[in-house]
């Protein structure tokens, strides 16, 4: 039934198909116009993002020098392997790396940034060479240079310099606003932490063109990371080392400084740790080991540990008693080996007693009976007033993080907190630096500085100069007078004479015979956990002090023998190598 109607319709349909084709042509052209002309800019930028990868290069940190220019901490280059996720099969890549390096390797697979896995860190140079030689078999693998912190003889000044760690995801929430990236290095303690803003430099970047497999086609531009400032500390490295070694295998503290400026010359805390371990990345086990050690090596003992000051505190009692005129330098006392008060006998450390002693001899012999008496004459309120005057229990203004303050007990405190009355016995304990009283070694060091300076207290500091990239000094820390303790000159004279006698005829016999006039005081801090801590602190030359020192030997035992022996080594070294 082939008919004209169908034939006509076929003609119409062919014509209709032509129009459909034209309509399609218009639609496709319009879309093409939309994509390439109207939104071309947007897509071009997309294409850029496709092919351009920006790799941020970690900032460099400034170096840290000692006062003589010895480099204590610096950044050195290390190598690591980074894998760009998605550029190839990571399992295959890892298998090939094992083959190339011919050993079994545990990959860290840490995600440093979105799409970037750190495969291996701290790669030896020969491995780097092997990897580079085989780079065409390792698509998506980049060898990256990164800075690692290197500390000179790590353990010697670890608690002062501190260490650097990496910013973790949690910290990033806060630090991210300050321009830190995940895994950036940041000072975690010590100078590294306190002067983070000066030490941290500027990050660099490398913009590279990559193909679809993540292989670098070319480097588009490059900005190397830089540091901005280096620090020169007041520390004397050789002295620091001497102090560290003088302690030997004992734990404790050595502080040496210049009383006229507040400069800290040595800052030793033992036991110590090696901050270089943190630079290469501590394993969890190593970190837990450090934390769990009973001796707590991460504690910066000079500023963060609290001890009873023991007889060292008698210096303050002696000053107060003279100034308040409850005693004169000519008064003499009798020590039978104990002081009876009420029904109690308060013992002197010398069982047989010191017999008849003058005030100065009482200091030299550290006679408890005399100081019980002076303490009772002064009363707790006056002792507290003098403690405040000397800055005990107050901010030390040292430029290190986490500096603690000691604890000074008062009758009000005892009433409010312990709900007990203050007994004369408490006063007597306080007078010999025992009981509730706790101090940091730094506080005792500052007390010695105050005496050496006859009342002038300068802020202690470890930073001396800030240097720019070219080593030019951009800032110098000047001595800053914190306060003046105004006592009568004869008060200072008497106490300093007493402290000289400590060495020449008293408890500091271990330092006898040194070719310098030395004023010092011994101390023994009772310790409920074991043998007593041994203190020895003072200054020399005593008529115009240039060095103040403080030694604490933990569990040094009875008397001040141990600490004084350490001090002697330090003083001898100073006299020989630095002069007075």
């Amino acid at each position, binding site marked *: *039934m082939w008919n004209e109607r*169908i034939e006509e319709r076929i003609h119409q349909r*062919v014509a209709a198909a032509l129009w459909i084709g034209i309509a399609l042509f218009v639609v496709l052209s319009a879309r*093409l116009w939309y*994509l*390439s002309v109207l939104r071309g800019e947007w897509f071009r930028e997309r*294409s850029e993002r*496709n092919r351009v990868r920006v790799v941020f290069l970690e900032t460099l940190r400034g170096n840290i020098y000692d006062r003589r220019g010895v480099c204590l901490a610096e950044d050195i280059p290390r190598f690591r392997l980074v894998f760009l996720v998605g550029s190839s099969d990571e399992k295959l890549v890892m298998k090939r790396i094992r083959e190339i390096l011919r050993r079994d390797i545990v990959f860290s697979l840490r995600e440093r940034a979105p799409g970037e896995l750190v495969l291996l860190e701290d790669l030896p140079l020969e491995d780097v060479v092997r990897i580079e030689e085989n780079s065409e078999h390792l698509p998506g693998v980049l060898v990256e240079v990164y800075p690692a912190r290197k500390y000179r003889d790590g353990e010697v000044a670890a608690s002062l310099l501190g260490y650097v760690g990496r910013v973790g995801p949690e910290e990033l929430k806060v630090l991210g606003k300050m321009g830190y990236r995940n895994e950036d290095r940041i000072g975690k303690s010590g100078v590294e932490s306190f002067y983070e803003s000066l030490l941290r430099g500027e990050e660099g970047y490398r913009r590279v*063109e990559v193909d679809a497999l993540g292989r670098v086609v070319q480097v588009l531009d490059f900005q190397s990371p830089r540091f901005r400032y280096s620090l020169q500390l007041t520390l004397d490295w050789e002295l620091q080392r001497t102090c560290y070694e003088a302690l030997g295998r004992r734990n404790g503290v050595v502080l040496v400084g210049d009383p006229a400026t507040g400069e800290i010359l040595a800052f030793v805390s033992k036991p110590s740790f090696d901050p270089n371990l943190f630079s290469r990345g501590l394993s969890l086990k190593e970190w837990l080991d450090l934390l769990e050690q009973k001796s707590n090596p991460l504690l910066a003992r000079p500023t963060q540990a609290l001890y009873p000051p023991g007889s060292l505190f008698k210096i303050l009692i002696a000053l107060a008693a003279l100034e308040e005129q409850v005693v004169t330098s000519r008064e003499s006392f009798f020590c039978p080996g104990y002081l009876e008060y009420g029904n109690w006998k308060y013992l002197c450390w010398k069982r047989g007693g010191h017999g008849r002693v003058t005030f100065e001899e009482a200091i030299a012999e550290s006679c408890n009976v005399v100081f019980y008496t002076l303490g009772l004459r002064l009363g707790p309120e006056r002792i507290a007033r003098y403690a405040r005057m000397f800055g005990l229990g107050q901010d030390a203004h040292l430029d290190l993080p986490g500096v603690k303050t000691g604890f000074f007990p008062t009758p009000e405190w005892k009433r409010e907190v312990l709900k007990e009355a203050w007994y004369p016995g408490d006063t007597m304990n306080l007078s010999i630096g025992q009981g509730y009283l706790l101090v940091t070694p730094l506080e005792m060091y500052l007390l010695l500085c105050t005496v050496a300076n006859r009342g002038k207290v300068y802020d202690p500091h470890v930073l001396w100069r800030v240097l720019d990239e070219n080593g030019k000094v951009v800032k110098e820390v000047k001595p800053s007078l914190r306060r003046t303790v105004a006592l009568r000159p004869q008060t200072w004279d008497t106490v300093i004479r007493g402290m000289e006698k400590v060495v020449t005829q008293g408890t500091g016999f271990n330092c006898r015979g040194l070719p310098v006039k030395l004023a010092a005081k011994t101390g023994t801090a009772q310790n409920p956990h074991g043998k007593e801590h041994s203190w020895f602190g003072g200054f020399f030359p005593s008529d115009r002090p240039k060095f103040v020192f403080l030694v604490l030997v933990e569990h040094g035992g009875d008397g001040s023998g141990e600490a004084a022996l350490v001090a002697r080594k330090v003083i001898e070294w100073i006299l020989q190598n630095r002069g007075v």
Partner: protein
Amino acid sequence: MMRREHFFVLVTLCLCILGVVAVYSVDPLRDEGFGPKSFFGRQVLWNAVGWALFLLFRFSDFQWLFRRSWLWYLFSVLSLGAVLVFGESDETGAKRWLFSRSVQPSEFAKLALLFFLSSYLSTNRDELDFWSLLVKSAFFVAVPTLLVFLQPDLGTALVLGVLWFGALFIGGWHKRKLGLLLGLFAGLSPLSWFIMKDYQRKRILAFLNPWKDPLGSGYNVVQSQIAIGSGGFLGQGWLSGKQTQLRFLPARYTDFIFAAFCEQFGFAGGMVLLTLFILFFWIVLEVAQRVENLEERLFAALFGILFLFQVGINVGMNLGIAPVTGIPLPFVSYGGSSLLVHLAGAGMIARLIWRTEQEERERWI
């Protein structure tokens, strides 16, 4: 005045040359010379064979192809069956190839079905617009379509289906019947979701929102649009498209060659291609109007529709307005089977143009 046939040959030639240019620009072995192993070298070789076929059909009467259309039909069904049994898989896991990946029978099935449909409908011209012929032809088309679908090659299956619908459209079925068919198809197509393979579903979803997963299932669509968009008006220049040269663009030789072309030659280059396509289509449909013979008219019109649909889907998916299906761009995409089939078809169209011109001239004389 230029003769229509010459114009047609010129358009076809331009498309092939641009195809070779495009394949050259994405050839990864470009720098290693143009041996027979490079994509470019092979494309040139296929072009040579294809143009030989073009000339063969241009200068010989191809009526015998219509008379033996059943043979081609059976042959293509058998070869598609063979693909399912002996075929070799490609990267996607689909079986599409015979003879160590040199022949893609589904491409030849397009041409075979073209002959079969135009011959079958014109033989049964008394039944045009009848439900009976519609059902019978549907059955014949369904067999190869199903075989292709099982490979799985959704794109070519779709092309075969469209070819059938195009035949009904050109064959003069009433628009109510066609509308009913379309409605039926639209109603049933959601069901096809359940028989689709996973990757096919992902492609559909990716088409609906490619930027949701730009590195996963939406990658093709996104990278293709980036390539086209970053070409701008005049393009980044030959051999310098970043998307293409840094190989972000997938299937650069085949499915996404249009995007690679546009990145290099921009909107202007894209429009040149599109214009050549529409001119080609126009000439083919025009000759369909001119020929007297019904089966030749159906053949020409269906060839035009086949061409238009493939261009539309391919360019559409490059532009992100059609789902990603593995349909090559006629004359331009890298690939021998497709090129041979289309050049052979073009040769036949050229003969029809020549003949109608002869007939018109005779009429004047």
